[in-house]
C-alpha cells in the first residue's frame, strides 16, 4: 500500500499536489482509484465547499455541459445532492427516474443508454439495482459515467463524502480506527468505504451478524467480528449501515428487535469508543434498529454534515471528470 496522501493543509496551501487530474473517463468505483486521485478529489472538494458558502452559490465551470441523472432506483437524497452539485457548477441537468416496472417490461439498460447517447450528454450519473450496471453503461456510452450506486457493488461518492467528513474533523485518515457496523453483505457503501479507508491507511473493523459478513472479508484488508464491543473499542469513527426489513425473510437474523439488542448503536455501547468519536450513517436511518435515536441526534453524530459535504464532494467529482485544461500562459 502506498503512503497515504496528505491534505492540502498538511502539504502547505500552495504546494503542488501529487496528481492534478483524474485521467479517467468514469468514476465507477473506489477500487480503481489511487491514493493520489482520492486526495485530489478531497482537496478539490474543500474548494467546492466554499462555493456553497457564498451569496451566489454558482460558478460557471460546467456551463454548457449536459449532465443526466439516470436513476433506476428511487432516491431523494443522492439525486438531490447531485442535482444541486451540477447546478452549482452551472451545468444543464436532466433527471430521468426510471420506474422499475418499465425496466421489467421493456427497454434494456443497453437500449436506454444508446438512446441517451444519441443526444450527446456529457456525463451520466447512474444509480441502478444491478452490480456492474455502470460498467455496462461505460462500455456503451462515450459520456463520462458516475456511479451513484450500483446494486451491492459500490457507491463511490458516498465513501468520498464520508472520508471528507472524517478528514474535516480528524485532519487525517491514516491510523484512525474506523468501525463499520451493519448489513455488510449487501452494502455498496461498505465496499466503497473499505476500499477508500484501507487505501488511505485507516484501521478498518467491520461488524455484523455472521450471516451478513461477506465471504473472504479478511482479503479486503479489514478485521471482521460479530462482537460489537470489540469493533467499537477505541474507535475514532463508527459508521452504521442500514438494515433492511427484507433481510429477516432471508433468515439472516431473527428479528429487528434482536438485531438492535445485539448490534444496535446505543449510548452505552458508545462509551467504549474514543471520547471524540464520530458517528456516521449514509442514510436513510432505521431509528431503533441499527442506531438508537439518542445517538443519531446526539453530540457525536455528524450525519447531517455528511449530507452537506455530499454536495461539495459531488461537485469535485463532476468538475474533475468533466476535464479541464492547463493554460498557464493565458493569464
Amino acid at each position, binding site marked *: 500500500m502506498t503512503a497515504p496522501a496528505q491534505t492540502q493543509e498538511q502539504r502547505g496551501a500552495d504546494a503542488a499536489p501529487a496528481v492534478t487530474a483524474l485521467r479517467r473517463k468514469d468514476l465507477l468505483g473506489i*477500487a480503481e482509484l489511487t491514493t493520489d486521485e482520492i486526495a485530489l478529489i478531497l482537496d478539490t472538494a474543500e474548494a467546492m465547499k466554499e462555493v456553497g458558502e457564498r451569496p451566489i452559490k454558482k460558478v460557471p465551470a460546467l456551463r454548457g455541459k449536459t449532465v443526466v441523472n439516470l436513476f433506476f432506483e428511487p432516491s431523494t437524497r443522492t439525486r438531490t445532492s447531485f442535482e444541486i452539485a451540477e447546478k452549482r457548477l452551472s451545468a444543464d441537468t436532466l433527471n430521468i427516474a426510471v420506474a422499475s416496472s418499465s425496466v421489467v417490461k421493456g427497454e*434494456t*439498460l*443497453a437500449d436506454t443508454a444508446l438512446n441517451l447517447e444519441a443526444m450527446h450528454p456529457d456525463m451520466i450519473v447512474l444509480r*441502478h439495482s*444491478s*452490480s*456492474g*450496471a455502470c*460498467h*455496462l453503461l461505460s462500455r456503451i456510452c462515450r459520456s463520462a459515467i458516475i456511479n451513484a450506486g*450500483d*446494486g*451491492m*457493488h*459500490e457507491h463511490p461518492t458516498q465513501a468520498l463524502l464520508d472520508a471528507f467528513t472524517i478528514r474535516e474533523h480528524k485532519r487525517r485518515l491514516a491510523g484512525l480506527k474506523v468501525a463499520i457496523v451493519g448489513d455488510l453483505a449487501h452494502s*455498496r457503501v461498505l*465496499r466503497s468505504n473499505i476500499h477508500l479507508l484501507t487505501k488511505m491507511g485507516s484501521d478498518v473493523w467491520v461488524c455484523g451478524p455472521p450471516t451478513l459478513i*461477506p*465471504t*473472504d*472479508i479478511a*482479503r*479486503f484488508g479489514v478485521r471482521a467480528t460479530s462482537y460489537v464491543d470489540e469493533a467499537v473499542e477505541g474507535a475514532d469513527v463508527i459508521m452504521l449501515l442500514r438494515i433492511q426489513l427484507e433481510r429477516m425473510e*432471508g433468515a439472516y437474523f431473527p428479528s429487528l428487535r434482536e438485531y438492535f439488542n445485539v448490534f444496535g448503536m446505543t449510548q452505552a455501547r458508545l462509551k467504549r469508543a474514543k471520547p471524540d468519536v464520530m458517528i456516521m450513517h449514509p442514510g436513510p436511518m432505521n431509528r431503533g434498529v441499527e442506531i438508537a435515536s439518542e445517538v443519531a441526534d446526539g453530540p457525536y453524530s455528524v450525519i447531517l454534515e455528511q449530507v452537506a459535504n455530499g454536495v461539495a464532494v459531488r461537485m469535485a467529482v463532476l468538475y474533475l471528470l468533466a476535464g479541464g485544461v492547463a493554460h498557464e500562459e493565458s493569464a
Partner: protein
Amino acid sequence: MKRVLKGGRLVDPVTGIDGVHDVLVDGDRIAAVGRDLPVDGASVVEVPAGLVICPGFIDMHVHLREPGQEHKETVATGTAAAVAGGFTAVACMPNTTPVNDNANVTAYILTKAAEANLARVYPIGAVSRGSKGELLADIAELRQAGCVAITDDGHPVATALLLRRAMEYAGMFGMPVIEHCEDPSLKGDAVAHEGYQAAALGLRGMPGACEALGVERGILLSELTGTHFHVAHMSARASLRALRKGKEMGVRVTCEVAPHHFTLTDEALVSPVPYDTNAKMNPPLREAADRDAMLAGIADGSVDAIATDHAPHHYDEKNVEFDRAPFGIVGLETAVPLALDRLVHTGLIRLPRLVELLSVNPARILRVQGGTLSPGAPADITILAPDLKVRIDATSLRSRSKNTPFDGWELRGAVAATVVGGRTLFVNEAVDGLNGM
C-alpha cells in the same frame, strides 16, 4: 467406397493402440486397422506427420435449443459447430421449448438431425413432465423414441423422492440419470461463485457446497436404486470429494467436467472485462482450488468425461446487467484446443487419457456406439493436429451464438478433420496435406 488413412498415429485406448497404424474405412464402418494395410481398391489418404487419429469425440452435454429457441441455435447450426469442433456426436439436453418430455419432440429433434446430416444427435429426455419436477415424464416412450438418458438439466430434480423414482424407473431400461446437482435453497438467486471475487463485485454467490449437496444426494440414491447416476458439469472440489468416495464404495456414479471449469476461475468476472456476462454460467466459475481439483480429478481418473455444456445465447440476451444475463457459454468449438493446450501440453495427461475423456467414456456412459476404431465400429473419426497454433475468433464460430469468454485466446492444439459414418464433414484449412480427406 473404401479409404485408407495411411501412416497416421492412431490412439485407441480400448484396443490399446498408440502408434502409427493404418485405418481402412469401408462405407460407414471401420474395416481394418493395422500396420501397412494393403491398399487394393481403396483411395489413399497420406496422413501428414504430427496428426493423431482418434475414435470420434462425443459431447454428451449440449444445448441445441431446437425446438423453440432457434434464435440461439438450431440442430443444423449446432451440429455444424460440433463437427467443426471435432465432435462426431452430441447428446442434446431436453430444456427446449417445449421441453423434450415426449416422443414428438424427440422425433422432431431426430428429424432435424437427419436433415442436417452432420454430427450424430442423441437426445436426452426429461425426468419430469415439462421438467417441472412434479410427475414423471413418459420415460419408456422417450426411450422408444431414441433418448439415451434422462435429466431435468437446468435445475436439479425437484425432490429426492422424484429422483429416486426416476432412477428406479429408468433403471428398467438401463438409462442413466443425469443430474444438474444443486440445492436450490442454498443457490437462491445467486449468479456467481460465493467467494472473494463475487464479494468484491457485489454479486450474490453460491458456495461449492450447493453443488456437492446434489452430488451426495444422487450418490446415495444411486446406491439405493442401483441405477447409474451421472453428475453433469461438475465444478466444485467438494463434489469431487463426494464423487471419489462414491466410486470407492462401488456406487455406479460418473461425472463430466466442462473445459471452462478446468481452465478459468472466478477471476474471469473481473478481468479482462469486469462483469463479463460471458463468464456467467451455472455452475459458476469457481476459485482456483476448485479449478485445480478438477484438473487433479481429470489426471487421476476420478473424472470420467469432458463435456462442454454448450449453451448458446443470443448477443442481446447477454448484453445486459450481469444479474439479468442468462447462464451459459458456447463450447463445442473451443473444447479441443483448450483440452490439448491445458491438459496434454501441460503434461497433466497423455493423449490416450484424453480420448477416454472425450470418446470412450461418453460412449460408455450413454451406452451408444463409438469410443473405438476397431473393425466393425462406425467410421466416426476425429483427427487432431495437436501442435497447430490457433487463435480463437468468436466471429468465425459456426455456432449461431458467439457467447464465449475465450475470444482472442491463443492455444496450441486443433481439430484437423472430422469424419462421421465415413463421410468427411470438416477439414481444417490451416492443416496442410489433408486434401484427400
